[in-house]
């Protein structure tokens, strides 16, 4: 479970996030929906302990993201905006490196890497260096790396960026499987269809604030709009930055 209370962050004079409060339950997919520049990435970066909030607090399960940052990191897997693989290492080595950093024993690392490679159907390229991977292969590797220590909470920053239709479908299936296995999945996106089809709960972010939250159905009902896209535009007051 991920919870945040009044998170705020400014860079220079720009207030990127102003008081975000949210909650993502276990066994559910929670979407963070908003146009570019709404503060989605900054919020996720604070949740995954990389950024320190100026105000507010957040917890990953019971671990405070600032006071128990190392504990919080043990309980979360983060798929960053860019997959950020090491080009000279193979997918398997990329995964094993993170497993080691998570302090897993050798046998456990190897077993878990095999498991993830099979689960994500990476067998065809797992032994090749990451340099020439397609975007889909990169995302899979990065996802496997984020999941290597079997974290209860999974955060994904715009995971479908740059993926083709088939890869997006695959990713959706994967996220659903994570949810069904009891994980808490929180992902950000600016693409409506993804969110409406996949999320159990949506938090709509605009200008650094949560402007609405609820199930997709509830949001549609509350705004009186038939499609979530219309609801979204109505909520954020502009269609600027929508993908």
């Amino acid at each position: 479970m991920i919870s945040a209370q009044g998170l705020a962050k400014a860079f220079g004079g720009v207030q990127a996030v102003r008081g975000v409060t949210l909650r993502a339950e276990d066994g559910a997919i929670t979407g963070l929906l908003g146009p570019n520049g709404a503060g989605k990435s900054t919020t996720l970066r604070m949740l995954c302990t990389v950024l320190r909030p100026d105000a507010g607090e957040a917890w990953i399960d019971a671990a405070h993201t600032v006071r128990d940052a190392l504990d919080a990191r043990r309980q979360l897997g983060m798929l960053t905006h860019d997959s950020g693989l090491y080009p000279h290492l193979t997918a398997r080595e990329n995964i094993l490196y993170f497993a080691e950093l998570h302090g897993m024993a050798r046998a456990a690392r190897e077993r878990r890497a095999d498991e993830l490679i099979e689960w994500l159907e990476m067998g065809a390229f797992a032994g090749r260096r990451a340099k020439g991977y397609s975007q889909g292969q990169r995302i899979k590797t990065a996802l496997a790396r984020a999941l290597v220590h079997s974290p209860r909470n999974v955060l994904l920053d715009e995971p479908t960026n740059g993926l083709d239709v088939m890869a997006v479908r695959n990713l959706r299936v994967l996220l659903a499987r994570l949810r069904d296995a009891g994980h808490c999945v929180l992902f950000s996106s600016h693409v409506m269809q993804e969110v409406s089809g996949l999320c159990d709960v949506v938090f709509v972010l605009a200008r650094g604030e949560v402007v609405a939250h609820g199930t997709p159905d509830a949001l549609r009902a509350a705004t009186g709009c038939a499609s979530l896209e219309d609801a979204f535009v109505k909520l954020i007051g502009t269609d600027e930055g929508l993908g």
Partner: protein
Amino acid sequence: MGAVGIVWRKEVRENLRDRRTLVSALLFGPLFGPLILAAALQFLVQRTADEADQRLEIAVRHVERAPNLVAWLEARNVIVTPVELDDEATRRAVRERSHPLVLSIPADFAERLAAARPASLQLYSDAAGGRADRNAARTRMLIAQYGASIGRLRLLARGVDPLLTAPLAVQDIDVSTPQSRSVTVLGMLSYLLLLAMILGGLYLAIDATAGERERHSLEPLLTTPVPRARLIYGKILAATTFMIVSLTLTAIACALALRFVALENFGMSAHLDASVVLKIILVTAPLAPAAAGLMTVVASFTRSYREAQTWLGVVMLVPTLPIAFVGLAELQPSLALSAVPSLGQHFLITSLLRGAALEPAHVLVSVLASLALGAVLAWIAGRLYRRESLLG
């Protein structure tokens, strides 16, 4: 294995697969270093040898006025070229180097010589030109020798012992050994070793910091449950490893290359057997963590691989500055100077090349000071990695 070791192993493995890092660490220093050194030495040695052997050329106005002098000069391997020039033309010829040295014999030369009065000669040369100046000095010395021999003959003819005119005799005793003479020439070896060492870890230091940020692999790395300082210590350690490998290879390669330079023929010898090479590596290696730390600290301020490369190209030269300063100021090794990182190493390397015994206190101070600087820089790098602006 602790997190530092895990990061170290991954950086080493990854960079062993990176051609750019590999070339700079394992090829550039060890291959080009000795080549540069050998070529420079060969050039230097060749030039010294050339000048000693080169025949002196003097253009002489009015050779017919001093046939004995000319014959005496020619007997001493001087090429005498008779010229017909007036004063104005002579000056021009010297300035334009068509005749860099012109000796003019006045009309009354033979007459004054016969009358045992000082006979003057005019030597035209251009003091602004290095080689012409040396040749003028050689000419002056030869003519003085000729004059002195005439003087002795005159004294003998008058029944006076010529030794009476030599109340003093200065004997030059050069205590430099062939090894210590060659040290001036081999002084560049410590430059070369330090540069090769730093270059060996340069790309790894960039790759592990600015490179990692540019590839966006830093952010996922920071979400692992490892304190940030440990990540950076692992990276510094990996750069240190590459630097020491590059240093070792370069030192061995230089020692091998120097065997092919005919130093001995010119009264010089490089004291570079296996045990000296090993000692050179051992006294220089403690500087590696400081160099790696410095590179990492600087690279963590840069935004991209390219920017880091530009900055580090300049920073790379920092360790050579104290050596250059000491070279100019002609300072001697001392305990205080040994504490200056890179300078301490330079003194120790020079001592080893000279074949002198190492001062244990100097070694200790140099090693400790360098390691302490390394520790401080690593600590600073660790602090810098806690900044949020690191993610850019």
